[in-house]
């Protein structure tokens, strides 16, 4: 009989009781799935992107299903930092789950302001910095694909908070290692890999793009092998932890990310397919480790052979 494996992981000073969180934008602001998912069972919850000011987002249609995936161009609508703190933070007083708030801005100063606003509330445990939204025209993806701009954002956020900061990397770069290293050098506590992949679908009858924004981000099982490769590459050059995400539907998917080099993982699109996915992934990782006699999930991180 094997001992219960140790599922705990650390993202900077953030302690997670298991390595599974949810991907920003797929789980709302917290309450939406609370009827269906015991939030306190998650390693952490990551809420939808928050900016300094409220934002209206894109027109509809905002999503489109594709083979083994979906496109989205929601455009980061949200209540702004003050609105989030007022409307949603009280909800989390009833939960113990660590809270990661995803943040974004249109300018470097915006990133600084939203960081300041979310640095104050004690209930916010960490910030995930979206430098790679493919669907916002101003700034958005640019900060994720130009390494100098990228550094300026990470520096700005780092200067405004001592909470753990996780930089969410864009997948559509020539060399993910440069960005992962830049994040580490600028004092980030972790990187998350990957955001959705810029993509497009066109209706051949109307000849119009399927999304009002014309292009969007591809997520779901279709992108998992891309994400695995990017995690594996980044893991070879950085010492900070990586949160792996992209098409995780099962514990086997999550284990593949961990073996590739991810310390933690996030379930995204699968929440739409089956809200119980994240909990199944937690249970599945634990029983797999136990069956293999692996004492701690941390022992598996980056153990890819060859």
């Amino acid at each position, binding site marked *: 009989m094997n001992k219960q494996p140790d599922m705990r992981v650390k993202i900077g000073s953030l302690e997670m009781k298991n390595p599974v969180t949810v991907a920003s934008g797929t789980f709302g602001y917290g309450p939406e799935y609370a009827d269906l998912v015991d939030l306190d069972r998650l390693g952490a919850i990551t809420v939808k992107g928050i900016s300094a000011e409220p934002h209206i987002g894109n027109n509809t249609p905002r999503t489109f299903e594709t083979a083994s995936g979906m496109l989205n161009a929601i455009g980061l*609508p949200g209540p702004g930092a003050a609105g989030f703190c007022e409307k949603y933070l009280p909800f989390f007083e009833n939960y113990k789950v660590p809270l990661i708030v995803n943040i974004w801005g249109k300018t470097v100063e915006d990133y600084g302001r939203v960081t300041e606003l979310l640095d104050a509330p004690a209930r916010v445990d960490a910030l995930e910095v979206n430098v790679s939204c493919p669907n916002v025209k101003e700034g958005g993806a640019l900060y994720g694909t130009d390494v100098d701009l990228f550094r300026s954002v990470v520096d700005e956020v780092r200067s405004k908070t001592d909470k753990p900061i996780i930089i969410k990397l864009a997948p559509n770069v020539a060399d993910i290692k440069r960005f992962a290293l830049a994040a580490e050098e600028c004092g980030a506590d972790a990187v998350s890999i990957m955001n959705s992949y810029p993509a497009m679908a066109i209706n051949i009858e109307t000849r119009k793009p399927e999304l009002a924004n014309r292009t969007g981000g591809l997520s779901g099982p279709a992108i998992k092998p891309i994400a695995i490769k990017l995690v594996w590459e980044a893991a070879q050059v950085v010492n900070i932890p990586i949160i792996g995400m992209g098409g995780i539907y099962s514990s086997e998917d999550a284990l593949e990310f961990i073996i590739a080099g991810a310390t933690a993982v996030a379930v995204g699109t699968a929440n*739409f397919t089956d809200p119980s996915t994240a909990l199944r992934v937690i249970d599945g990782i634990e029983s797999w480790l136990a069956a293999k006699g692996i004492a701690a999930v941390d022992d598996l991180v980056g153990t890819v052979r060859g």
Partner: protein
Amino acid sequence: MNQEKTTVLEHRIFQGEYRLLKLSAPAIGPLVQPGQFVHLKIPRLKNAVLRRPFSVFKADAESLSILYKAVGQGTEAMRDIAPGEPVDLLGPLGTGFPMVGQDNIPVLIAGGYGNAALYLQAAALPVKGVAFFGGRTAADILCVEEFEALGWDVRVTTDDGSLGTQGLVTDALDPWLAEQGAGAVELFACGPNAMLKAVGDRAIEKGLTAWLSMDRNMACGVGACLTCVIKRKTETGWEWARCCKDGPVFNAEEILWDE
């Protein structure tokens, strides 16, 4: 809101292209309010990441049923669902129809199988008024006897005149409304957008209350992803409202029509 592994009790052709799917759903069925919907994970639909939303047609303590027609990849795959098969369901979801205002005569307005979303409301309303059902052709007019059995006065229109009066549902509604006294009528509608807008415009013009069940492409179904949003009027302009959570039923006065 629950997630339930339901079992298919019955799956058959209801009429023409329309099918009825009845599921054993003791965790969801008894909670369903008129106008709410369920989010169904279609079995064996490989490569699809999204569920499909369906208005609840009927529901009781043990089961619920939906009416559907194959209109896309998802509903086409549904035709292969077999009795006894497990079906993963989320529900009941959304904000449905309110009770009719006191002293108001309730009026139901449906386009095609939109009346599936009105059946529970038709059963729940204490007063039975008039139900206007419109469709392209006779084959698209469903459930007339069922609504009549509940005590509703059903008026049918078809585009081609193959059943009832020829014309749009509003062609039958307008003269009827003109005969009514002011303020005493309340409308409950489900159908295509053009019909809903036409019904809503009439209600606003005449100072009547109309409740419209809106249909938009949906992803999560629980209010998290912000896919299915429509514009809802505010004092200063408009805001996005979620069809899956704030709706699908909205007061016509709230809706800012884009199209």
